[in-house]
């Protein structure tokens, strides 16, 4: 690895640690730690939401599965054009208004406010913990891959280094550090993606040349549904667009904005940045496939598509920015999930069992648990051996199937009942877990045809159970403040 890349990346990591230390001095309460004191501006919220939603999945997993399965995989990233709009339409105003009439810190807090049910709150916390494990695994694995490349060290040391850096700024600075590092990282992601896109087109001789060359040997790859076919990728489009309503790393950021009127431009800024960042997925996966189709050697692993492209074809300065961007993307998502996972363990689960820990106790234990989650995430990443994207898809799918109906529909439909919410949470959690574990361990023949995306089936079943059970049960009167929030 050239010294330029090492220098740029090293400077970046030092910068992130400095932000963490600065944030640590501002973190005095559990509200500071978990929701950044609810004092964050529009640009920071938009960039942080975008970067934590897109993550290392976009920079490493995306080009990797594009390289492997073709243009159909773009339907994992194209939902960004609508998903942020949906999140703002369905969640932003109501989540922020809830935080103005009640003390809210987490997504299970919103579930509890809406349904007045500790069971629903507890199930939401369990879903979050399960999804966090998958997501943290994918982020730390992405960090490990990239840091291994930058510093020419084995994967396990790459994972350890990344975990250590994130641990420093997350444990010390909590969500304040998370938001401002996310913002810096989001900006880096956009710049790195834009430059990389034009470089990839140049290396491949233009999109037309790449597509013609690939299409000559693999016509399915260049079709809009790619090698996997329309059944799978249309399921992705559904889950990755509407599924944003269940993503806690997106939803709880609405609590943090310092002025509700600043929601106005947030969706647009987040979407534009996400669309630009998506260009990496489109271009790098394609150019690496083109290079193989043009006579080059196949990649040792699909996830190597982006790192190898940058090492072999980009100027050192750009490669440095790109690697910093990838590490940025992974770290920004990892820190959000660490705080979300910690809050589920030290706040939501005790509250679900009727115990309210003191604010100081939440802050203290929040830091310990964040550290423990860092270590667990490193272990999952090293042990998984999966494509980065696969763990990310599991995490997104768990949040989407379990939380999107109860949160997204529930906050917009006063007829929804606690029984409906509990039913959809149970269907989402057990369905995702069972089908994904069965896919890994083949306990039984899958009840679904091979052309159906498993998580999409669970997602649909979860929404249907939410609506059907709500209609079949009697709604409770809403508390006056919640009813008012939902009427606006």
């Amino acid at each position, binding site marked *: 690895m050239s010294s330029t890349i090492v220098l740029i990346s090293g400077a970046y990591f030092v910068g992130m640690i400095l932000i963490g230390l600065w944030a640590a001095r501002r973190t005095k309460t559990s509200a500071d730690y978990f929701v950044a004191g609810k004092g964050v501006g529009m640009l920071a919220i938009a960039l942080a939401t975008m970067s934590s939603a897109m993550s290392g999945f976009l920079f490493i997993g995306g080009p990797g599965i594009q390289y492997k399965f073709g*243009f159909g995989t*773009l*339907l994992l990233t*194209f939902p960004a*054009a*609508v998903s*942020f*709009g*949906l999140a703002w*339409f*369905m*969640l932003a*105003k109501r989540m922020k*208004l809830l935080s*103005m*009439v*009640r*003390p809210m810190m987490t997504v299970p807090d919103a579930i509890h406010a809406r349904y007045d049910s500790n069971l629903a709150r507890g199930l939401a916390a369990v879903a979050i913990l399960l999804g966090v494990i998958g997501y943290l695994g994918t982020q730390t694995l992405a960090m490990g891959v990239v840091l291994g490349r930058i510093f020419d060290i084995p994967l396990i040391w790459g994972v350890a280094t990344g975990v250590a850096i994130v641990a420093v700024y997350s444990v010390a600075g909590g969500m304040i550090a998370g938001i401002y590092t996310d913002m810096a990282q989001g900006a880096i992601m956009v710049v790195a993606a834009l430059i990389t896109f034009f470089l990839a087109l140049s290396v491949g001789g233009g*999109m*037309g040349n790449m*597509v*013609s060359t690939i299409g000559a040997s693999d*016509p399915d790859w*260049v*079709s*809009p549904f790619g090698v996997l076919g*329309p*059944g799978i990728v*249309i*399921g992705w*489009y*559904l889950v990755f*667009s509407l599924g944003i309503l269940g993503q806690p790393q997106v939803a709880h950021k609405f609590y943090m904005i310092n002025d*509700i*009127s600043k*929601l*106005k*431009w947030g969706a*647009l800024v987040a*979407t534009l940045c996400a*669309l630009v960042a998506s260009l990496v997925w*489109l271009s790098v996966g394609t150019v690496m496939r083109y290079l193989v189709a043009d006579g080059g050697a196949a990649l040792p692993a699909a996830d190597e598509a982006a790192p190898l492209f940058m090492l072999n074809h980009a100027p050192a300065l750009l490669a440095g920015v790109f690697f910093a961007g990838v590490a940025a993307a992974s770290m920004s998502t990892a820190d959000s999930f660490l705080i979300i996972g910690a809050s589920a363990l030290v706040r939501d689960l005790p509250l679900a069992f009727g115990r309210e820990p003191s604010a100081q106790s939440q802050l203290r234990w929040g830091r310990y648990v964040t550290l423990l989650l860092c270590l667990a995430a490193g272990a999952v990443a090293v042990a998984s051996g999966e494509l980065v994207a696969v763990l990310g898809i599991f995490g997104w799918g768990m949040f989407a199937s379990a939380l999107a109906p109860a949160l*997204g529909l529930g906050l*917009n*439909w*006063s*007829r929804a009942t606690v029984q409906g919410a509990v039913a959809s949470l149970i269907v989402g959690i057990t369905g995702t877990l069972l089908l994904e574990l069965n896919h890994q361990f083949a306990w039984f023949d899958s009840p679904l045809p091979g052309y*159906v*995306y498993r998580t999409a*089936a669970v997602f*649909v*079943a979860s*929404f*249907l159970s939410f*609506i*059907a059970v709500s209609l079949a049960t009697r709604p409770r009167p809403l508390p*006056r403040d919640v009813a008012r*929030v939902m*009427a*606006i």
Partner: protein
Amino acid sequence: METQTNAAAARLRQILVLALGAAFLACGLAMLAGATLVAAWAVSLILTLAASLGAVRESGLGPFKPYFIAGLLVWLLAFALMHELSASTEQLILGLPPATAASVFILWLAPLFLVTLPYSLHFESGVLSAADLEALKGDADPAQVDALERQLGDGGEA
């Protein structure tokens, strides 16, 4: 009067959720049957209904109605083109096979203009007004009221 308008909004939300349920059912059945174009169209309907549900206010869908109708039509068209156009590389549109070009240039970009951008353009008239915040003040947790006051005091046109 306020109760009547709230009841109308609640009725519209109920209708949208019932339609959403029907669209999810159609989507699930089409997925299982391998009828991918029907599934894709059902997804288009689901996304439009979801955005509409989030946009409902006392005045219905207000300024968002034409955008959402156009959005639905564009989604239906994009998925139809992706299924029906050629995916071969003999003829390319901006470097992509026609079917793939429909995916990249319509499915990727159009929702930005038909769902996300209108949220910003019509925020004050269609999402949240100063009157909404004023009405909420009476329900606010006393500990949170000062924050609300500050926002209203800062211009608060929201």
